[in-house]
Structures are given as structure tokens and as C-alpha cells.
């Protein structure tokens, strides 16, 4: 843990978290979590009855082929989507008890998302992209600027701050996305196939960057994907198939050797 100053202004959930989060030793939990999509007359069970407990500072990797329900699970855990059944807890807080705005606050301050296709705002520079969640959180402009600068330096992009996404390589864009996910100092990062759109070498760099953040900042990671190299750095690896967890084992817990 570094002694980072809390930079967010006012968090409407603070009191709720303070009250509830001490009741759980797991930073993320899920019980009988299910998500069913109705496709006309067909029911698609994207996630079926998943139970999960993630420790603080854990680097969890969930592997599975395309369509196995990884993204859906990640969305449910990150308060982006609501389950059809079961419950998800973030820092001890039952997401099903939160209203729309409170869920937005969970995404704003408690979890950071990293996506396969980077999902940067195309019209904003790297700096602007990292500042965006800070602006959502009403962080004063100077603080936001300094914070974004610092984060971009931390992911190795100090020099390319003023470039828009189209002027950046895939690896660089993913670094911006990671910096952005860290903006409001969340303790949890949810990464959806972060290397899925990168070449081997760049993918390895990104995996190592995530692992470093996990090691140095004590951030909790849930990374989903099918990149086998993820298992090397993971503390724990869960295999997912057809919306269910089919196996669980310890990961390598090592640094990635290139």
C-alpha cells in the first residue's frame, strides 16, 4: 500500500461502506449470481449460479472461451449490470440494495474497468481520458490535471499525454485505459481480456503492468480472458464454461518473464 491521498471529493457511499465493509473480509463476493438473457423464446444463461470470494490484493484470473460468460460476470461484479438472481458484493456492500445513482458511484470510485478494445473517448487526449472520471467525481481542475499526469507517468506514458487515441498504438491506448481505471483510486480493477487486442509482446507488457500495480499498490485484480500467460502472474485461476465455474486452482503468482 502506498500512502496515496484520497483525491475524491465527496463519496455518497462512504458511510454505507464504512458501516458494511467491516463486516466482510472479502473485497468482492458473489453468491448464486445468475444472469439470464431472453432472446425471443430462448433463454440464454450467460452466468449461472456463480459463487465467488475474492481477497483484498488478490490477482484473480478467470479463463474461458468466448461466450462462456466472463464479460457478463465482470459487469455484474462491477455494478454495470444487474443479476437476474443472486447477489454481488463490492467491499462488503450488497449491490442489490443500491439505486441507480449509487451504482454509478460504485463504478466511479470503487472499481475500475479495463476493456479489450480500450474504450477510450476518441475525441479526448490521453490526459483528457484520464481526467474524465476525475471530472465526473468533481475533482477540482488542477488536482485532476496533476493526478492524470502522475498516473500517465506511472503507466509509462508521461510523454504522450497530449495525443488522442488514434495517434497511439494499441499498447499505449491500453496503458491510458489502465491509468484511467486508476483515476479515482479504486481498490479493485476489473479487466476484460486486456490483452485480447494486442500482439504477444505488448500483451505481455500489459500483463506485467497489471501485476506490478497489484504488487506495489495492493490493488485487487479480476482479469478475465483466454491468454494462458495470465495464469503465470495469477494468485488464483478459475476456469469458466457455459456460465459456470468448472475448476479452480492456484496460479503461478510470479512475474512474467519475457
Amino acid at each position, binding site marked *: 500500500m502506498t500512502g496515496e491521498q484520497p483525491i475524491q471529493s465527496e463519496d455518497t457511499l462512504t458511510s454505507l461502506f464504512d458501516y458494511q465493509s467491516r463486516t466482510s473480509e472479502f473485497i468482492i463476493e458473489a453468491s448464486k449470481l445468475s444472469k439470464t438473457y431472453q432472446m425471443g423464446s430462448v433463454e440464454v444463461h450467460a452466468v449461472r449460479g456463480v459463487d465467488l470470494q475474492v481477497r483484498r490484493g488478490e490477482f484473480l484470473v478467470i479463463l474461458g472461451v468466448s461466450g462462456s460468460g466472463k464479460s457478463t460476470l465482470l*459487469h455484474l461484479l*462491477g455494478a*454495470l*449490470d444487474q443479476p437476474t438472481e443472486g447477489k454481488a458484493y463490492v467491499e462488503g456492500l450488497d449491490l442489490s440494495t443500491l439505486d*441507480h*445513482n449509487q451504482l*454509478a*458511484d*460504485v*463504478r*466511479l*470510485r470503487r472499481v475500475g*474497468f479495463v*476493456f479489450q478494445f480500450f*474504450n*477510450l*473517448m*476518441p*475525441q*479526448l487526449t490521453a490526459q*483528457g481520458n484520464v481526467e*474524465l*472520471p476525475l*471530472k*465526473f*467525481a*468533481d475533482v477540482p*481542475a488542477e488536482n485532476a490535471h496533476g493526478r492524470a499526469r502522475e498516473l500517465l507517468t506511472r503507466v509509462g506514458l508521461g510523454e504522450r499525454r497530449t495525443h488522442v487515441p488514434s495517434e497511439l498504438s494499441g499498447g499505449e491506448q491500453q496503458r491510458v485505459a489502465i491509468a*484511467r481505471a486508476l483515476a*479515482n483510486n479504486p481498490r479493485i480493477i476489473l479487466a476484460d481480456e486486456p490483452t485480447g487486442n494486442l500482439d504477444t509482446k505488448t500483451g505481455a507488457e500489459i500483463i506485467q503492468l497489471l501485476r506490478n500495480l497489484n504488487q506495489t499498490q495492493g490493488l485487487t485484480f479480476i482479469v478475465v480472458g483466454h491468454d494462458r500467460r495470465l495464469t503465470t502472474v495469477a494468485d488464483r485461476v478459475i476456469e469458466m464454461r457455459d456460465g459456470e465455474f468448472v475448476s479452480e486452482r492456484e496460479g503461478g503468482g510470479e512475474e512474467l518473464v519475457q
Partner: protein
Amino acid sequence: MKFRNILGLSWTNMRRRKTRTALTTLGIVVGIMAVVSISALSGGFEAQITDQLTQGLDMDILTVLPGGGILGGGGLTTLHMNDTVVIQNITGVEATLGFSQSGTTVYNETDGTLDTRIVGLNFTDLEATYGHRLRFADGGFPDSGSNDSCIIGYLEDPIAAVGDNVTTEILVRVGFTFVYVNVSFIVSGVLEEVGSSGMLPFDRSVFIPLDTYQTLFNSESIDMILARIADPTQADAIAEEISTAFEDQVLVIVPTAIINTVMGVFDIMEVFLLAIASIALLVAGISILNIMLVSVMERTREIGIMKALGAKDRTILSQFLSEAVLLGIIGGIFGIIIGWVLAYGMGLALPLLFSGGMTGGFVGGDGNGFGGFGGSSNFTLVPVLPLETIFIAICFAVLISVIFAIYPARKAAKLDPVKALRYE
């Protein structure tokens, strides 16, 4: 999210799509341009005409004509000098002036001829009614009792000086035939320029004693009676009283009524034109609605990203609404600028186009009559655009674009983030 940040992001978005932004505002620009140029032009026109009418019409002079009703169907066919007494006796009437006039040619042996009108009136009445407004360039009113003296109105090239003899040729009925008779007058005074002055034009006229006029033209009647009233705000009431005194057999013209009638026509025109402009703005609003819906669809993924990053629904909503506000302001400003330039250009062009027709044509057009656009020369139309109109135009532009952006903005705010993120 702070409003300043929302605006900043909107501005970035709009700059990214300059062409689209320009096209979106185009409707607003055109609509506001129409509203501004119409109201500036008609404002200028109205100011111009009010100005000319108030100059041309003496606000404290009522005109009494024979004949009741609008066009004198029935009613008295003639007025006589003793009718002035009836009017004079009405409270609020300060002085009366009965006169007759006809067109004629006046010439002076040395200085040439002048096509003019000859006016018969009592000089004492003239002095009582218009005395405070008339200035003699030379000479003065004739001695009372003198029946062969005249006063000449202002002329650019005077044809006679005080003491000169002027001759006028008058067509007179003798029995069953008409003959031309030459009558001479001694000039007792020459007036300074009066400019336009209602029913009785002074400049270019020759004034002779009423008795002489009536003898010459073998007539006992007078054309009309002018009554000067003490308080112009009482004009309507006094006009009513005069009318009643003559059993509604006369027509009383109130100057303010003329102005009101003309202004009324302008108001109707303005309402009509503004209605057209409003339709333009409505169309502008619908095009904003349309383009914004497309924009929301195109930016679905961005909206999903923003939501994944923790943006609240109201942040997305205000994002789109603030873009609409900016569109409205930009459109409004350009509309006002272009509208003003247009109005200014038309203000210069219109008088040139109409210079022939307008000057003579408006209100009876008798060269000098009724102040009819000051004798053709300097009719200019300066558009009038009060700050208030500018403010209202901008507000209107913003209002229209915001109203039509509400639906797309709500649609954007309500997007499901997961679906939005999966959107290709």
C-alpha cells in the same frame, strides 16, 4: 459533474464534428436570421414612418371635412365659414381656420412662373391657428381689410419679393362659359420654410384673403376647417364632440388615428412575418431533434464508456442538453449577425427600389402633402435592433434547441451501459 466541465466536453464534441455542428445550427441560424432581420427592418420602418407622420401631421390639429362616415356618403356637402363658430365654441378648441384651395399657376413678370396652389383664408385665423409656427423671411401679414394682398410660402427659387406684384390666372365661370381671368396680388410677406404640415401645406403655396378667393371662384363654401386644440391627448374626445355638434354630418380626422392605423397595418405585417419565421425555427428544432438522435446512436459506445466510468444518467443528460445550449447560442449569435447584415443591406436597397412609388404614392401624395416622405430625396431605412430583441432572439434559439434536444438527451441518458458497450 461540474457544469463547466460538461460544457467543456460538449465544446470538444462539437469541434470534433465541425461540419455536423454547422449543419445542426444552420436551421437555428436561418430562423433567427429571419426573425432578427424582419423585426429590425419593420422596427426601422416603423420608426421612420412614425417620425415622418408625427413631423408631417400636427398632432394638435384636427381636420374637419364635409360629409359623415368614412367617405362622406350623405352628410353635409359643404362647409361654410359660420361652421367655424360651432367648432370654436367647443371646449378645448383654441382656434379654427377655414380655407379653400385650388391648383393654379402664378407668375411674376420678371422671375417666371410657378405651378402652385392658391389658398383662401382669413389671415387673422391663420395667425391664431398657426401663428406660433410661421416665420416670415420677409414682410408680414397684410393689413386687415386689404383684399389684394398675398403671402407666399417658401420657395427654393423665390419668384417674388415683398412689394412685388404677382399674377395668377384663374379659370372662372361666367354664366355658362369658363374664362381665364388674370388677378394680381401684392406680396406682403414671404414665409420661411415650414416643411410638411398636415392638411395645409405652406411651402410653395400662395395665400390670399378668403373673401377675395370666394369672390374670384364665385363660391360661398370652404373646403375644410382646421381646429387647433389645447391638449392633443384629448383629440379623440374633441373630435367626437365636433362630430356630434354637426349631427355626424362631418368627417373629423384625428392625426393620432392616422398613425395608429398605419402602425396597425405594420403590426399585422410583423405578426405575419414572425409567424413565418417561427415556422423556420420549428423546422430548425425538428432538424436538431433529428441530428441529435443520429448523434446519440453514433455515440452509443461513448455513452456506455462514460457510464462504465461512473457517469450518472443526469451527467449524460446534461451533456447533450449543454450541447444544445451551445448550439442555440452559436446559432443565435450567427443568426443575429447575419440577420442584422441582411436587414442593413435591405434597408439600403429597399428605398432605391421603391423611391419612385413610395414618395408620391403614400398618403395622397401631393408633392408636399402629408409630409409624404419628405419630397422623395432622403428616405433612408435604418434597421432598428434593440438589445432586448438580441436577448430574446438568443433565448429563443437556446430554448428551441434545448426543447428539441430533450428527447434525444433522455434517450442517451437511459441507455443501458452494457448494451451500449457491446454496441458496434
